């Protein structure tokens, strides 16, 4: 095992997210409070006929990017802009850029599919055989993996070290770890971390191919869970060494399953390693965690492996829940969305309930919270696990 050095705790000085629950923080908090999310039967026209539920963000079709941002116009960037402009986030970043200088603010964004939907629709219009024609700006500004980082740098006016992290469903959890390392190494003094993923044909049909899409709303840790519901979302956080903010990032842990491309080892070994590494980095004992926001996708194997991993390290008593019943699985954006739910558990003093119809699986050994309830949360963990066996656990604490 590698020995980790002390890394700085980073205050979350601004944050926001937009999910199927709605636009900005107020909509997320209302959804958590009421235990009522944004999943709906598939009405995404490009994927018509696919029997599944989705977490769709309303109105993106009517929000084209124009003016200087027109070349970036695609569903993924429309969602990113809509989200970044809520809760004063973009303004807070511009303020930080004025204080530190734009070149000293890093930007790390997680995505799994970038703007691929617009490429899929363009090729579908032209037929399966090709050769396909594309607008000359399409690849650089909309399709490529670097496009979200490029777009957000321009939108938010930051110019420091930048990269897209694309490790499937752990992408936007790993941006927190990358930002923390980058700040510790002096590569930047503050960082914007983000995650953005939007509905795409390749992910909808891909998860169907693996028989991992539920035909009903997903039921994380449910007795009859049978798959996930894909969602779309964008989340943002501004990380600084000091500043006004109720919650700080205090530890991160990353590991690889080295087992299979899409299935975890049954005992959640990779999850255990990530959780242990995050605890060690935060200087905490297992009993110090007051709430775990689980990856909890609602697939039989993933929920079982994660629960086994959590219980092996943290025990059976710690309150746990998955918020994917509210948002759906936002893939490359799931990491930051769920990190922000964990952060808000500390800030609001309440534990979000695990939304999903039906009874909980009695074989799941961890303590799943059914309903949102007040509870003093000093430290919260968020778990994210992705294809390729990519695991990341984050720990937040009161600043």
């Amino acid at each position: 095992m590698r020995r980790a050095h002390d890394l700085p705790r980073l205050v979350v000085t601004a944050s926001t997210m937009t999910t199927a629950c709605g636009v900005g923080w107020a909509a997320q908090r209302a959804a958590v409070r009421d235990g009522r999310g944004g999943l709906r039967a598939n009405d995404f026209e490009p994927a018509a006929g696919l029997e599944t539920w989705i977490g769709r963000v309303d109105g993106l079709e009517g929000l084209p990017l124009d003016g200087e941002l027109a070349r970036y116009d695609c569903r993924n960037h429309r969602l990113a802009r809509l989200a970044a402009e809520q809760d004063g986030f973009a303004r807070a970043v511009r303020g930080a850029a004025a204080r530190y200088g734009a070149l000293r603010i890093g930007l790390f964004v997680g995505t799994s599919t970038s703007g691929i939907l617009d490429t899929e629709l363009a090729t579908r219009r032209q037929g399966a055989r090709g050769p396909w024609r594309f607008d000359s700006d399409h690849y650089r500004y909309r399709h490529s993996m670097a496009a979200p980082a490029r777009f957000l740098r321009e939108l938010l006016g930051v110019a420091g070290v930048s990269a897209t992290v694309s490790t499937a469903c752990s992408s936007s959890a790993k941006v927190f770890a990358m930002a923390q390392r980058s700040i510790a190494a002096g590569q930047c003094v503050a960082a914007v971390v983000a995650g953005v993923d939007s509905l795409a044909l390749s992910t909808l049909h891909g998860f169907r191919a693996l028989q991992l899409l539920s035909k009903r709303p997903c039921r994380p840790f449910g007795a009859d869970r049978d798959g996930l519901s894909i969602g779309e979302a964008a989340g943002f956080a501004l990380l600084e060494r000091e500043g006004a903010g109720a919650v700080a990032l205090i530890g991160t842990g990353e590991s690889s399953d080295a087992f299979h491309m899409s299935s975890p080892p049954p005992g959640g070994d990779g999850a255990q390693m990530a959780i242990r590494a995050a605890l060690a980095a935060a200087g905490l004992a297992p009993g110090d965690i007051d709430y775990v926001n689980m990856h909890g996708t609602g697939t039989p194997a993933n929920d079982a492996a994660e629960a086994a991993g959590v219980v092996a390290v943290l025990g059976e008593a710690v309150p746990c829940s998955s918020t994917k019943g509210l948002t759906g699985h936002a893939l490359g954006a799931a990491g930051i969305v769920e990190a922000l739910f964990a952060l808000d558990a500390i800030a609001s003093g309440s534990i979000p309930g695990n939304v999903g119809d039906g009874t909980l699986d009695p074989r799941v050994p961890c303590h799943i919270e059914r309903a949102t309830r007040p509870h003093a949360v000093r430290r919260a963990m968020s778990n994210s696990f992705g294809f390729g066996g990519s695991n990341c656990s984050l720990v937040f604490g009161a600043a």
Partner: protein
Amino acid sequence: MSVRLSLRGVGVLAPGLNGWSAARDVLAGATPWRDDPVAMPDVRHLPVTERRRVNATSRWAIAVADEAAATLDAAARASMSAVFASADGDGDVLDQTLAALASPQPALSPTLFHNSVFNAPVGYWSIATRSTGWATMICAGEGSFAAVLLEAAAQACASDGAVLCVCVDLGYPERLAALHAPGRSFACGIVVDAGPVADGGFGSIEIDAAAIAPERGSALVALAAGFAGNAAAAAIPVLARIARRESGPVLLPGFDGQALRVRVIAP
């Protein structure tokens, strides 16, 4: 704050650059480069199931990773962390995915979906080498090699042990020519750590993020003409200095016209 990293191993794979020992003289300028094709790398240490499925980008990435890590002892390899990057992902997988989704009955195969995840190369590598440590996969467009060095420097500061850096970009199929055409394929791997430079080794590399400047990086870096358009080939000037055992600065393309100044230091 600049960080000096010791180079522990190097790997390269590209047309006419078939492995470090074969490519060293070419990169050093002692032998002219020839556009010789390279065979698709075998990946014998992958379990049978994964070996049947693994895509080209992952094969190339694993090949250069193995070569770069070959000089490490077993303990160092076991604790190694990994930063992989690609500007363009896997063009063949994208091509097949788009065709499958454009057909009247859109459907993907499980293998195609597995291989479509951007981090497939680092995922397959971790399975092949049983590496359970810290691993990531990033993209920074034409600045992807610079981004890999920055992340490796940050990781080397954040914990003990070696960091494997892999940068891979393969050519795109003809049907996607209007979308993107990265040209010839290129992959390279280096292993670095924060320990002292070894006698007779590969030397070291100094990375200074403060030198990120709003300059036109692409105009400042002479990519080997044969690999123009391939982001991973931004590594060529660095590999050339390592091959020549020659100290000196390299200005690498950074994000969107920025540049990262690094310095290769001969052993």
